C-alpha cells in the first residue's frame, strides 16, 4: 500500500499530483485582452482559441482547425464568424463550420465544441468540466451595482502552484499568523453553514458549489514605540481603525469572494478567480478594493494601505505556491479540520469534472 493509498483509507482527502482541476468557472483572460483579433489561449493544459463573434460575445474553443490543424488564432473574424487562415473555413459561435469555399456539403465532423463562456467583472470566464455548467457564475455586486462604493485595483499573479493550493489558502487560516505574521489572539475560525452569513459577499451561490468560512479575531494592539513592525502590520491590516478583525470568505470551486471588517465595519472586498493554464502553471487574478469613505484623502490612504497589504501578502504566498510539493500525504492537525473539509469538497468537484470525459472540441 502506498502512502497515498493509506492516506485515503484513513478517510482523509486525496492529495493528487498535477492539474487536479475542479469543475467550475475559471478566468480565461481579461476582457481587454480579447479584442477583434482571435488569440491563442492555453487553459487546462489544452490549446484553445478565443475570439469575439459579430455581437462581440467571446467564444473559447479548441485552437486547431478540424481540416488540417492550422491554428485558428491566426485567423480573422469575418462577418461574425472565425475564418481559418489556411483554407478559409469559417466557424460560427457554436463551433460549427458554416462555410468551406469550393465545397457545398460541409462534413458533419467539421465542428468544434466551444466551452461555456460568460463575460463579467472585466473577465471572460469559461466553464471547465462538461458541456453544461453545473451552476451559474456567482454574483459579486461590489464590481457591478455597488462598484461606485469601492476604490480598487486588479491583480494577476502567475504561479507554479495548483488551483487548489491558491484556493485553499484562505481556508488555511493558521498561515495568516505564521506566514503573514498577523497577531490574531484570540482567533476564531469556523466554516459557515448558512449562505445568509455570507450575504455581504453577494447573493447566494448554488448550495452544492458553495463553501464559506469566517475568521474572527483580535489583533494585538502593538504601539509604535514598543513594536514598530507589529504596529505597522496592524496599521496596514486595519487602516488604524481598530483591533477587531473579521474576514468573510465564500466561493465556488474555482473562485472566492472576500469581505474584511474592522470593528464590524466593512473595509474591503476581493474577488479572486483562477486561470489554470496547465500543470503547475496557475494564476490568481481578480480585483481588490477598499470601501470608499466620506473623505477622498482617507479613501486614498486606505487604498494605499490595502494595496500594500494585498501585494505584500501575495509576495509572501507566492514563494510557497511555487515550491510546495503535491501528491504527498499530509499530517493534519486540529486547526486543519476545515481545510480537510475544503479538500473533500474540492475533490468532489474534481470528480464531477472527471465524470464528464468529453473534451472540448470532440463532437458530442
Amino acid at each position, binding site marked *: 500500500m502506498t502512502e497515498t493509498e493509506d492516506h485515503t483509507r484513513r478517510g482523509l482527502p486525496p*492529495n493528487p499530483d498535477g492539474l487536479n482541476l475542479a469543475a467550475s468557472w475559471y478566468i480565461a483572460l481579461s476582457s481587454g485582452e480579447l479584442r477583434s483579433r482571435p*488569440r*491563442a*489561449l*492555453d487553459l487546462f493544459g489544452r490549446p484553445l482559441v478565443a475570439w469575439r463573434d459579430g455581437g462581440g460575445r467571446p467564444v473559447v474553443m479548441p485552437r486547431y482547425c478540424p481540416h488540417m490543424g492550422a491554428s485558428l488564432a491566426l485567423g480573422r473574424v469575418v462577418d461574425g464568424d472565425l475564418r481559418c487562415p489556411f483554407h478559409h473555413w469559417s466557424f460560427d459561435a457554436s463551433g460549427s463550420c458554416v462555410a468551406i469555399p469550393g465545397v457545398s456539403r460541409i462534413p458533419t465532423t467539421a465542428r468544434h465544441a466551444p466551452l461555456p463562456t460568460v463575460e463579467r467583472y472585466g473577465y471572460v470566464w469559461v466553464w471547465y468540466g462538461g458541456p453544461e455548467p453545473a451552476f451559474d457564475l456567482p454574483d459579486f455586486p461590489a464590481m457591478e451595482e455597488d462598484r461606485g462604493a469601492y476604490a480598487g485595483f486588479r491583480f*494577476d499573479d*502567475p*504561479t*507554479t502552484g495548483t488551483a487548489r493550493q491558491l484556493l485553499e489558502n484562505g481556508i*488555511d487560516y*493558521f*498561515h495568516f*499568523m*505564521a*506566514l503573514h505574521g498577523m497577531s490574531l489572539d484570540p482567533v476564531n475560525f469556523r466554516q459557515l453553514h448558512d449562505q445568509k452569513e455570507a450575504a455581504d459577499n453577494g447573493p447566494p451561490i448554488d448550495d452544492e458549489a458553495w463553501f464559506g468560512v469566517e475568521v474572527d479575531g483580535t489583533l494585538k494592539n502593538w504601539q509604535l514605540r514598543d513594536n514598530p513592525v507589529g504596529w505597522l502590520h496592524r496599521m496596514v491590516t486595519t487602516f488604524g481603525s481598530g483591533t477587531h478583525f473579521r474576514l468573510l470568505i465564500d466561493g465556488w470551486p474555482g473562485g472566492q469572494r472576500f469581505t474584511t471588517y474592522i470593528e464590524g465595519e466593512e473595509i474591503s472586498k476581493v474577488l479572486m478567480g483562477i486561470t489554470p493554464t496547465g500543470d*503547475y*502553471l496557475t*494564476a490568481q487574478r481578480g480585483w481588490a478594493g477598499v470601501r470608499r469613505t466620506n473623505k477622498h484623502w482617507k479613501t486614498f490612504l486606505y487604498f494605499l494601505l490595502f494595496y500594500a497589504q494585498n501585494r505584500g501578502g501575495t509576495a509572501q504566498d507566492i*514563494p*510557497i505556491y*511555487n*515550491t*510546495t*510539493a*503535491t501528491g*504527498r*500525504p*499530509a*499530517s*493534519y*492537525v*486540529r*486547526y486543519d479540520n476545515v481545510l480537510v473539509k475544503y479538500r473533500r469538497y474540492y475533490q468532489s468537484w474534481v470528480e464531477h469534472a472527471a465524470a464528464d470525459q468529453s473534451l472540448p472540441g470532440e463532437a458530442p
Partner: protein
Amino acid sequence: MRLKPSPPPRPSPSAAPELAAGWYVALPSACLGRPRRLELFGRELVAWRDGAGRAAVLARYCPHLSADLALGKIVEGELRCRFHHWRFDATGACVDIPGVRRIPGGAHQRTYPVRERYGFVWVWYGGAEPMFPLPDFPALEAQRDRYTTYRFSHGTPASPRRILENAFDHYHFMTLHRVRSAGSLTLTMLADPADAAENGPPIATEAWLGARLEARALQLPRALSPIGLDGKDFALLVDGWTGGQRLTFFLDGEVVAKELLGITPISGSRTVFQGWSLVRRVGRPWLDALAHLGYRSQHLLGTREDLAIYRTAKEGTGTVPVKHDHGVLRFRKHYQTWVDRAEAAEQNRTVAP
C-alpha cells in the same frame, strides 16, 4: 500571450541513479549557511545548520502541507517552516507546532547522516545508519603544512561509478592521457587496507578497494625534460570507498602529490566530483609555486580529457572486457555489492518508520 513573465518552470526531480551505499560530498561547508535546497541522490532535500552550527540534511517538504522547508528559517537552532511555523530539530523530529499541543506521529522528516570534514559536508546514502566511518585523510588535517593545496570541482552527466572506476582503469592513462614509459603501466590490486597506509589509516575492509599503478622510467615530452621529471619511476596509490578515493602520486618512490576525491551524485543525469589536490612542498617557495602550477595544469588537462569521455559515453553499454580491464571489473563487482546493500537498506528504511 500573457504580458506578465511566467514564473520559471518547476524542476522535476529525475530518478535516482544506481547508487552504492557510502559517504558522499553534499556541498562545500562554506556554501551552507541559511537553509538551502539540496538535490542529492535524485532526491529533494534541504540542508541547514542547527544552533551549534552542525550541518543537517532532511527531506525537503514539510510533512504538514508539503511546503518547501528551504524557505524556512533557523529559530533557536531549529528549522522552522515558513508556512505554519512547524519546527524540526536536526534529528528530523517535529518539536513544535504553534497552536497545537499534541504533535502528530507522522510529523517526522527523514534525515541523512552527516559529517563535516575536509571543508565539505558529507552525507551517507544507504539506510539510516552509516555502515562504516568516513575515511581519514591525514594529508588534509595533521600533515596539511607539507603541501600546497587547491580545491577542484567538475560536473558531468556520467555516473558516480564511471568516475570512481577511472583510477582502476590503468590502460586509459596510456591511451587517453598518453603516459609513456619504458615498460607498460601496470596495475596491482591491493590485498589489505594497510597496504595503502601512505593514503591514510585503513578504511573499513568491506568498503575498501585499492590498487597500485606503476610505470618505469616515464617518458615526458622533451619540453619538460629540463625540469628533471624525465626518466623517473612513477607510481599511483589509489584506495577508497564507494563514494570517494584517496590518491598518492610518487616519483622515484617520493610522494609528489595527493588527492582526495569525493562524489556528489545529484541525479541520474548529473554528478559532480570534487575534492582537494595537494602538492608536496620542498621548502623553497618559488619551486613550490612552480610545482603547484605544473601539477595543477596537468591535472586540469587530464581532467578535461576524462570529462570529454564522461560527457559523451553511454552508461550501461560497452561490456566487452579484455584482460587489462581487470581493475575496472574488480571495481564494478565491488561497487555492485554496495549498490545492493544500499537498496536493501533503503528498502528497510521505507518499511520502518
